[in-house]
């Protein structure tokens, strides 16, 4: 017996669009039927290379096709208008969008309403939740391995704009460092510790597009510190990490390793190698395959996916508060 495949489209054929289009093509229950990009050159190349895939320049043409799921992988500033258009249709598709959900919390809140009304599955690509090391850290926290949490320090560094005289000239097109890079560790922190508030008096953001430090505090008095920069030397591969201090020990976690140190002096560590990091198809990082496969499974099983638009909008809320606080200072 053959089951009908889910039809899929990718809007925005840049680096991330190609990664998701490729992974979707390897999933047994999905068919890639359309790509959409505003660049004439990219459309021409895609048309010549990909047989059986419609390549279009206009969102309306995607909506005309019978698409089950759409991946939005355009630059962040365009997310709101694209998703708004997709979800305003009578027959809205299931939507996955690369982080962040939108450029502002108010726009994200509107998209959450639309998504709720659509009744379809929606998800934001906070792929670090699908990394084996961060999953292990979450598991350890849930097990109470370090007791009650007192504080954490989170960092997100890359060398993307290291050495440029005026990085803001090019970096602003990616939505700024907090949205592009920092959003991953903000999402991980919300996932690990629950909601928190930005402390406006402790924001250091003289160059908010490129380097930001700020503090947060949760209802349960967990204190957190974030350090985000894409102008650091020596980070060819971006690095995301957290150091978490609890009443009974510490956990240090990044993309490669989780280290647990108990108050009694015992220590344990797990590398990716120890945590079964293999996937059905590896492109970029194993996390991409896991999040795409999970999104598709959620659609097939008719259940919601996490991080949903609602969950991810909290990241936009935190980012908005950092910008507000920095402006007031």
């Amino acid at each position, binding site marked *: 017996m053959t089951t009908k495949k889910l039809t899929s489209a990718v809007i925005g054929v840049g*680096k991330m669009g190609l990664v998701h289009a490729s992974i979707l093509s390897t999933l047994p229950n999905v068919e890639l039927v359309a790509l959409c990009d505003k660049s004439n050159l990219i459309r021409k190349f895609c048309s010549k290379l*990909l047989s059986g895939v419609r390549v279009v320049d206009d969102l309306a043409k995607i909506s005309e096709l019978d698409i089950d799921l759409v991946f939005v992988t355009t630059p962040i500033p365009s997310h709101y208008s694209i998703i708004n258009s997709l979800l305003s249709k009578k027959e809205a598709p299931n939507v996955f969008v690369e982080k962040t959900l939108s450029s502002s919390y108010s726009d994200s809140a509107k998209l959450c309403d639309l998504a709720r009304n659509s009744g379809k599955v929606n998800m934001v690509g906070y792929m670090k939740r699908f990394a084996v090391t961060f999953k292990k850290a979450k598991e350890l926290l849930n097990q109470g391995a370090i007791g009650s949490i007192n504080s954490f320090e989170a960092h997100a560094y890359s060398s993307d704009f290291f050495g440029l005289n005026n990085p803001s000239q090019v970096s602003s097109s990616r939505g700024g460092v907090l949205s592009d890079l920092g959003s991953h560790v903000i999402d991980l922190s919300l996932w690990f510790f629950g909601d928190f508030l930005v402390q406006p008096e402790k924001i250091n953001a003289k160059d908010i597009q490129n380097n930001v430090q700020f503090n947060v505090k949760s209802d349960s008095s967990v204190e957190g510190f974030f350090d985000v920069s894409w102008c650091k030397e020596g980070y060819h591969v971006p690095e995301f990490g957290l150091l978490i201090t609890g009443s009974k020990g510490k956990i240090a976690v990044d993309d490669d390793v989780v280290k647990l140190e108990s108050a009694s002096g015992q220590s344990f560590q797990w590398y990716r190698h120890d945590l079964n990091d293999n996937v059905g198809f*590896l492109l970029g990082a194993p996390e991409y395959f896991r999040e795409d496969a999970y999104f598709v499974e959620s659609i097939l099983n008719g259940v919601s996916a996490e991080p949903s638009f609602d969950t991810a909008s909290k990241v936009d809320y935190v980012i908005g508060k950092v910008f507000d606080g920095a402006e007031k200072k």
Partner: protein
Amino acid sequence: MNNEQPILLVGDNPFHGISHLSQQSVKNRGTEITRVKHASDIVKTSIENGANGFMFSVSETTLSILKMLPEKKQKERLNLYALVPYAYEYVRLATHEGGLPGLAKRFAKEVLQSGNFKTVGFGLKGVLTSDPMDLIKAYLSYEIIRIKASAKNRGVLRSVLLHEVITDMAIALNLESLIKSYIKFMNDHEIEPGFETRNFPYFVKKFKEWDINFKGLVLAAPFNKIGFYMNPSKDECEKAITDVFGSTMIVMSILAAGYLKPMEAVDYIRGLPNANAIVVGVSTEQQGRETFNLLADKLKIA
């Protein structure tokens, strides 16, 4: 392994500040290793201790390393296996130049500046007809010229391998004609066509589906005793390698990015059918000496 002397290649990841074990390992190594002179000394020592080739992503750094290696008589020249494109460099350029269209414009400018008639011809044709294969040919010609100009009498360019990101996107998106055109182009230039992949069983399945013979191809994929980077599973990779007879099969990640000791890796590699080449990145001269001495000794065919 096959019943022939294996090709032992020095890998270049450490020279770019890359470790697949952890970022901490990169920090521990310090910045010295990314300096060209230091890196070329490591390559030289590895060669003196059993390595007979260099596998590298084509970048200013690796081409400079190549230029610092000693010139050799024809029979003694180093086997060169070049990976293109150097993904990090192009992603960084795309970031700085305003995405893929910006990157394409910059590349077109560089091709024009290269002054090579054939390269410019492919490039112009590619732009006029919007044919990606012509642009790819322009790019490949440009890279081959750069490598040969740097290698001179130091090494022989055996193969140009497509970087794993390109290979894996091509097999996922069913780009059969692109892969076949690439093989033909390389064969026409008397360079062995190569493919690096992190999805070896999927790759083998696709090539069989497309009726591509593995003979004469250079393949590179991770193989190690703990199954690190062996997707979707160690078992399936071990089955797939039995199908690639006639190829130059380069096994990489044999130390699982430093997680395993060389001695632990050797027994596993010895048992792999069709594997006839190994690439290992080393970050000190001592490591180069120990690792390649061990590999040359333990994998020696009596």
